[in-house]
């Protein structure tokens, strides 16, 4: 399916290559570079590029292109999802996906590449299995290795039984402190037109877990208002039938962090966008070469909550060469290279009664350039903690299974620490002017 994989950075350097069948020369990437030069930004490079004898399928992540070379029919999403999974694995191993982290651990990455695909077909992509085969580096271990003189990324004793009977969970997990954390993050995607009405609005949520529980715990997570969940996607560990029938999540979790569920929240009627924006942007003024800009944020947070990390981004047309503005709160900056105005407002304290922060002043227009008549959109990001916009709430989390006399092991009952965090963020939120 996948013949070769190339890692390419933003400056067009192929810094890693792996071939799964016959070696395909690097020059195949020239077709890719051609597309890169054609497009203004790396995000715009089409994910599927056709060349005379091959098809290049690529993803762009963390300032890098991961390019897979295919020769024959293959489901395109299969390859794309695989490349993302590969990046996830790298992230899982080295805490971040970046050119540096890959270059620093090039041998481990190459071993991983060898293990995840065989003859171009996915072999082992579950990080729990992979970690049995190839040990991830960590500070403590490298320190210990240095002291003892051991130096190996392959587990010294190949796990004979390995691969636990639940594919996604490694066996023999033990923790001194048993903890289970759930982050429920909802993102608001909306387009607001120039009159302040929402053209479209949707809420997408996800539940990310960090679970450190000993043994083989069986968890049940139930919601107060599960009817709010629509179109969910579930981690393979979730028992599907129970979700369909009882609307609760019953699962044996993988060890560590993972995404338990992603969903679309049903929101009938109007969604409350927790802020309002007044804006005037004009590029033309009677006097000389300057435009005018005025932005006012009117926060409408739910009672008792605060808008945090508020940032407004306005991509300006090429003709705007600078800005001289006054911000009543926060800081603004104008990047002349990308022509982007960024206003970082930060936290809006409702106690202070600061009211509505404004950004106001003139835009410096390039001399001689025609006055643009386009209308830039204002991109807004914010977060509100302790609140979900859809109103979804966890009812309770139950732990079963650890008390059962399985395998005649002495499993001590434990009481895990449980934590749930709610956050609402702006997803793709934009105000048209």
């Amino acid at each position, binding site marked *: 399916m996948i013949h070769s994989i190339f890692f390419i950075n933003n400056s067009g350097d192929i810094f890693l290559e792996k071939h799964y069948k*016959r070696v395909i020369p690097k020059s195949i990437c020239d077709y890719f570079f051609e597309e890169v030069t054609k497009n203004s930004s790396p995000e*715009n490079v*089409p*994910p*599927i590029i056709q060349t005379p004898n091959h098809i290049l399928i*690529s*993803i762009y992540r963390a300032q890098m292109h991961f390019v897979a070379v295919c*020769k*024959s*029919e*293959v*489901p*395109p*999403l299969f390859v*794309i*999802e695989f490349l993302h999974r590969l990046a996830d694995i790298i992230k899982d191993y080295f805490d971040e996906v970046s050119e540096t982290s890959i*270059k620093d651990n*090039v*041998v481990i990455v*190459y*071993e991983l590449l060898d293990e995840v695909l065989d*003859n171009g*077909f996915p072999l082992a*992509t579950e990080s729990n299995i992979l970690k049995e*085969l190839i040990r991830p580096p960590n500070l403590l271990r490298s320190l210990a290795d240095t002291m003892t*003189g051991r130096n*190996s990324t392959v587990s*010294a004793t*190949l*796990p*004979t*039984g390995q691969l636990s*009977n639940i*594919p996604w969970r490694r066996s023999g997990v033990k923790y001194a402190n048993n903890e289970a954390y759930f982050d429920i993050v909802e993102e608001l995607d909306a387009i607001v037109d120039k009159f302040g009405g929402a053209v479209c609005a949707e809420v*997408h949520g996800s539940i990310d877990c960090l679970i450190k529980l000993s043994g083989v715990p069986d968890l049940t997570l139930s919601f107060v208002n599960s009817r709010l969940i629509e*179109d969910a*996607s*579930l*981690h*393979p560990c979730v*028992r*599907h*039938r129970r979700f*369909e029938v009882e609307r609760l999540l019953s699962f044996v979790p993988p060890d560590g962090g993972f995404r338990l569920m*992603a969903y679309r929240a049903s929101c009938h009627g109007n969604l409350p966008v927790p802020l309002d924006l007044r804006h005037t942007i004009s590029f033309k003024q009677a006097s000389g070469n300057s435009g005018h800009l005025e932005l006012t944020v009117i926060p409408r947070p739910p009672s008792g909550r605060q808008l945090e990390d508020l940032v407004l981004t306005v*991509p*300006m*047309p090429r003709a705007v060469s600078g800005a001289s503005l006054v911000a009543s709160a926060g800081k603004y900056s104008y990047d002349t290279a990308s022509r982007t105005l960024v206003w970082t407002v930060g936290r809006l304290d409702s106690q202070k009664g600061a009211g509505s922060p404004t950004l106001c002043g003139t835009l410096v227009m390039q001399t001689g350039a*025609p006055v*643009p008549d*386009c*209308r*830039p959109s204002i*991109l807004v990001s914010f977060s509100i903690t302790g609140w979900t916009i859809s109103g979804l709430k966890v009812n309770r989390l139950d732990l079963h*299974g650890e008390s*059962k006399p*399985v*395998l005649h092991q002495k499993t001590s009952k434990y009481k895990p620490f449980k934590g749930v965090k709610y956050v609402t963020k702006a997803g*793709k939120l*934009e105000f048209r002017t």
Partner: protein
Amino acid sequence: SSASKMSNGGFQPYNSPMDQLGLPPPDHASSTGSQDGDRGTRSSAADPAGSAFFSGDFKKHDDLRAMLESSKDSQKLEAMRRIIAMVAKGKDCSDLFPSVVKNVVSKNSEVKKLVYVYLTRYAEEQQDLALLSIATFQRALKDPNQLIRASALRVLTSIRVPVILPIQTLALQDAVSDMSAYVRKTAALAIPKIYSLDPETKPQLMGVIEKLLADKTTLVVGVAIQAFEEICPNRIDLIHKNYRKLCELLADVQDWGQVVIINMLTRYVRTQFLDPAQQNQKQERQNPLDPDHELLLRTVRPLFQSQNAAVVMAVAQLYYHCAPPGYMNIVIRHLVRLLRASPEVQSCVLTSLSALSASSPHLLSGHLKCFYIHSTDSSSVKLVKLDILTNLATDSNFPVLLRELQAYVSSPDSELASAAVRAIGRCASQLPDTTDTCLNNLVSLLAKKDESVVAEAIVVIKKLLQVQTSDHSHMIVDLARLVDGIAIPRARASILWLIGEYCDRIPKIAPDVLRKFAKSFLEEEDQVKLQIVNLAAKLCVCNPKQARLLAQYVLNLAKYDQNYDIRDRSRFLRPLVLPDPSVAEPTLLAGKRVKKILLAPKPAPEVQSRFAEKSPFQLGSLSHLLNLRLPGYQALPDWPAEQPDSSVRAVAAPAPAPSSMAAYSRGGVDRISGSSDESEDEDEDEEDDEEDEEEDEDEEEEEEEDDDEEEDSSEEENT
């Protein structure tokens, strides 16, 4: 001593003794390891992946060779790491092959592993030397550790050396009946490798595939089907007996396997069952679903909720191609959900949705808002979304849609703005009732300052006017006035064409425009020149009094143009409009006839979605996306006219619990390698899996107890 070394080892590599602890820093290792190496440049050996280290001087490789020959594992390991770092970088390390291959017998598991990785990369180039390693693999194939057996088989079959084909085939045949499912999985993956080395092995491999298809572990079935797809995708008959088992196991197979199995089963369904959408002529109602057909649809349905977009797409296309009508709403809902995923997934899913929106827009009409364009979307996504929006346009949603399109027209992204103008034009031609609204809108765009938008608007207006029967001369006059201010050739050409085509309606302006353009002819772009020649010819026929001389002038200029199209056009038009007086006999093409020819009503160009014609390809396939039949694409067969024999799928009733238990303890390793045998005893020891909840309470308890006991015994056997 160790402490002092660690602190200054990097600075004094020359004097320090051989590292006793086995972990020298990289530069340290190279220096101590290369007693006979090139001492002069040793200090540059800092970064194993660094290019400076290996460039030019290949005595450096001697350095590595010496390390590989050393008796210390740490040295070998260090050398192998550097070599692999170079291989990863794409540098040629084939000259080290003899030194590396010796280490295949190394006791150190990591050295061995790296040697394996090296071997698969270079064995093909060094076939004779590669043979040295074969014996090691043959030995490893008998190792008690399943992982060692598996990796030996994997590397052995990855060595593309025809001479060892018999050894590979033999190893494969053994591995297929290995106790460990993991080894059997590796065996299934090895089949295409052997096949590509020598297609003659096909009959042998078929036997192996047949055996693997009968495998009941979730770990194996996915890859077995993949091998089936690559070697003998047409032997549908091999699937019959395994069909029900595949359906039942599907939910527990790894996501990659799920995609492959569902895609294959789509073809299977299309050959073995009747079209559920087709009316049964005798009973005048839809064909009842075959129970097996229904079984698949039912077992696959939960996979709509997979986190892997490829699985969701596979299920969606199965429902699209094989389910009775009425299920499409679910399909669309889940495909729309994928639009939230990564941009690459989004772009692929949108292409499929765009095909659906062209063939059956009613399915998507409820999701119009999902396709609204965000300014942060990538440019290809923007264009596909626009295509879908236009496909979904109806008389009722048109006002909303038009407002949305207008917003795009004033976007700073001029590519989107132009595309939005085109989209308005397409709406107008799709929905005749809206044409006037659209035209007015487009005309108002002519006042915009963005030239590319104006140009696009002109081109679209031209197309629309062509279909309009009513008189729009005022609009043409407006356009004629604009022509001086517009530099984009496409727009200028469009205006000229319009003036020529409708010169009867604007008798005053047309000759004047021709006069201006006759003057600027030499500076114009080719496509504009062509339209000037056209305009000249048309005017010459309609209004010879004013235009004849001008036309003559233009045709003369065109006659000597550098572009042969323009020269040809001039040569073709001249005898028609300016007949040579010296030829006594008037040509057949004179006067009125010429006018009829030149001003014949011309069909308007049709603007269509890319997927206006129903694609013959399977939804979600790469061929569908590129609209091109790729090698390896298996066409979706048509539904059979008669119900094929449905008893072929019958297998002996699912084994009752005890016997499956027996099968279970027999293959005790299966369970350890994370597979569930029969669906009945899916509940694995600690994890009373999914099934529990679904079964009757009483039964469940009994079974569970059985299970546990059984588990214990097998566990004991293993340990």
